[in-house]
């Protein structure tokens, strides 16, 4: 009997052990395996650099550079005062001080840093961030101090060797809602998917000290770098445009200024700048309204620069020729309760169409518009690309709406002929005028020439959008534009020896339902050399105060830039 009891107890104990073993080795197997792996296996992220952005000659516009986040483990740091004191000195020295700082200010700033660091080290936390974007040099100096409990995380930040140049065409890299680096605006925004790399992962066994084991598990998922973009933008022309525009905005007291230079034959953008601009390396220091590129986003009434397009439509339809005389140009025109006048209230009764362009005669343009009619006018406006996106590869392009054809009245037909009552972006205007420099062919504008990754290079080819007017029409309008430069209001600024085709624009800005005579958008659009155009350019000043006229503000800037581009391209004068 006693034997049976003992035997039963032993059996029960044995069963208990078996059950327990079964619980730990079968039921909890996955859980324990995972925990063991967690202790044994280290996972290390290999950062993938964002793709670089290069000028058309391969020089760097945006690349990446390593920076460091310095963190502390407050619970294990012994000498917090000393650490805080030393780190404050290093952090202060690492910051960029553009202006000289007095000893007193320096001491105050270091003391503030020291107090901030000490406060963070006093927190009851396992990990705390002390400073971000620390340079390699400073990191190496801190490493040599051998502070226990201070560590470094590598981060890859954007680096701009040209500083704040090309800010609007570049955009910037910020963080999305998950904290992941994301491009915004410009090329960074449009090509964010291509520029982003894919981080890699290294899985390996580690020992008790956290060091890798040579003969243990070692699995690598390679990091994939972002693709590199080569732009169509020419570094020298971009520099020329920015310098002249900056000088101009100050000289003419304008609220803002923009310029865009394009190759009319391919649609390649070779220069694009706007002011005020911002530093793409520090976007948080600038107002958000500076981020959007006015050239692709701001709609405005183009004014007289639009006349060349309407004239091209009239000539293309064989309704007028350069020598056709205007029979309604003797005085102001009354239409639907409105009076249409010339900009200087001077009237030439027998103006030819060439004279209309030379003298920027609004009444002459109404003559052309009436011959076209609403249907044909609307057709050509849409054919020239207005009312829809150009398709440029910059993020957040905007196309002002075109009022539906059925809503157009006679007064709308008249005013649109001289570029008022119709809205367009600077990009739309320059692209439309570029078609006249390209034998009547409208091209799609683009910023990126090629995209390179580890598999090869993808070249982006020019794309024809439409044949808007015939080559003969384009040539005829070009000659009218050349005469406008040689004999019009901008003749005092033209470049001697060069045939430049151009048109001034002075568009009044609508304010609270009426036009303000003192607030204008002053612009000049043109291309050169007229016989074989190498570039088309638009310069625009918003509300210049030195003079409201495009002929006295945008035109001189245009010709200054053109002169330098001629020198850069080795284009000699063709006339004595």
């Amino acid at each position, binding site marked *: 009997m006693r034997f049976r009891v003992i035997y039963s107890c032993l059996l029960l104990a044995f069963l208990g052990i078996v059950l327990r073993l079964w619980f730990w080795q079968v039921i909890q197997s996955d859980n324990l395996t995972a925990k063991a792996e967690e202790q044994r296996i280290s996972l290390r992220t290999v950062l993938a650099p964002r793709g670089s952005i290069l000028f058309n000659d391969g*020089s*760097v516009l945006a*690349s*990446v*550079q*390593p920076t460091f986040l310095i963190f502390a483990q407050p619970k294990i740091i012994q000498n917090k005062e000393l650490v805080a004191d030393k780190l404050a000195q290093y952090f202060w020295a690492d910051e960029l001080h553009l202006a000289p700082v007095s000893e007193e200010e320096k001491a105050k700033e270091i003391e503030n840093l020291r107090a901030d660091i000490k406060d963070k080290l006093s927190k009851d936390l396992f990990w705390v961030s002390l400073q971000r974007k620390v340079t*390699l040099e400073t990191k190496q100096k801190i490493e040599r101090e051998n502070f226990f409990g201070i560590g470094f995380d*590598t981060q890859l930040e954007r*680096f701009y*060797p*040209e*500083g704040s*140049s090309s800010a609007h065409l570049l955009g910037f890299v910020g963080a999305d809602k998950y904290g992941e680096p994301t491009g915004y605006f410009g090329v960074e925004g449009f090509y964010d998917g291509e520029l982003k790399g894919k981080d890699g992962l290294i899985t390996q066994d*580690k*020992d008790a*000290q956290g*060091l*890798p*084991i*040579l*003969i243990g598990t070692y699995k690598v998922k390679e990091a994939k770098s972002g693709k590199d973009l080569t732009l169509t933008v020419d*570094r*020298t022309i971009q*520099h020329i445009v920015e310098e002249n525009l900056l000088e101009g905005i100050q000289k003419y007291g304008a609220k803002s200024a923009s310029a865009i230079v394009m190759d009319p034959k391919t649609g390649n953008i070779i220069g694009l700048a706007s002011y005020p601009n911002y530093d793409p390396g520090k976007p948080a220091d600038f107002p958000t309204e500076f981020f959007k590129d006015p050239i692709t986003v701001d709609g405005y009434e183009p004014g007289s620069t639009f006349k060349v397009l309407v004239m091209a439509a009239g000539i293309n339809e064989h309704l007028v020729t350069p020598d056709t005389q205007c029979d309604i140009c003797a005085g102001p025109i009354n239409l639907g309760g409105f009076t249409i006048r010339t900009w200087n209230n001077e009237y030439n009764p027998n103006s030819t169409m060439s004279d209309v362009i030379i003298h920027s005669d609004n009444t002459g343009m109404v003559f052309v518009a009436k011959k076209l009619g609403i249907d044909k006018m609307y057709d050509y406006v849409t054919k020239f690309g207005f009312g829809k996106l150009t398709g440029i590869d910059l993020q957040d392009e905007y196309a002002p709406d075109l009022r539906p054809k059925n809503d157009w009245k006679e007064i709308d037909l008249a005013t649109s002929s001289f570029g008022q009552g119709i809205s367009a972006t600077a990009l739309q205007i320059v692209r439309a005028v570029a078609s006249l420099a390209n034998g009547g062919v409208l091209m799609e504008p683009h910023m990126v020439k090629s995209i390179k990754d580890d598999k090869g290079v993808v070249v982006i080819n020019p794309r024809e959008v439409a044949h808007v007017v015939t080559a003969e029409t384009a040539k005829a309008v070009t000659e009218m534009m050349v005469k406008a430069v040689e004999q019009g209001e901008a003749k005092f600024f033209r470049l001697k*020896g060069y045939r430049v085709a151009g048109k001034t624009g002075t568009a009044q800005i609508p304010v609270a339902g009426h036009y303000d005579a003192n607030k204008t958008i002053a612009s000049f659009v043109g291309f050169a050399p007229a016989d074989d155009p190498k570039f088309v350019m638009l310069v625009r000043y918003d509300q210049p105060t030195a003079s409201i006229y495009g002929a006295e503000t945008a035109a001189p800037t245009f010709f200054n830039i053109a002169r330098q581009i001629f*020198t850069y391209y080795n284009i*000699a*004068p063709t006339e004595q």
Partner: protein
Amino acid sequence: MNTIIEHLKTQKFHSRKVIATGIALLLIMLVAEIWSLNRLATFGTQITKFESASAALRMENEMLQNKTAELTSLNTIESHALILGFRPIHSIEYISANDVALVGH
């Protein structure tokens, strides 16, 4: 009979020798394996050292490339050119073939 017993004794001695040698070799291999595993397992510091050195060199390379890009930026070149005494050209004269007196031989 004695010869057979002697032969059997000799054979037994040889087989013991073989077994002893086998065991000794096994022990040596075991010790060697433990020793080599131990050695390799402690290579972690070396691996970390090489990885850090490789990462540092790559980083230095990137920094130098960026430094080169910065020093060759147009703004930098322009400011250095001004310091060296270069000045922007404001007027350029183009010489055509007609402007040159051709000297015949």
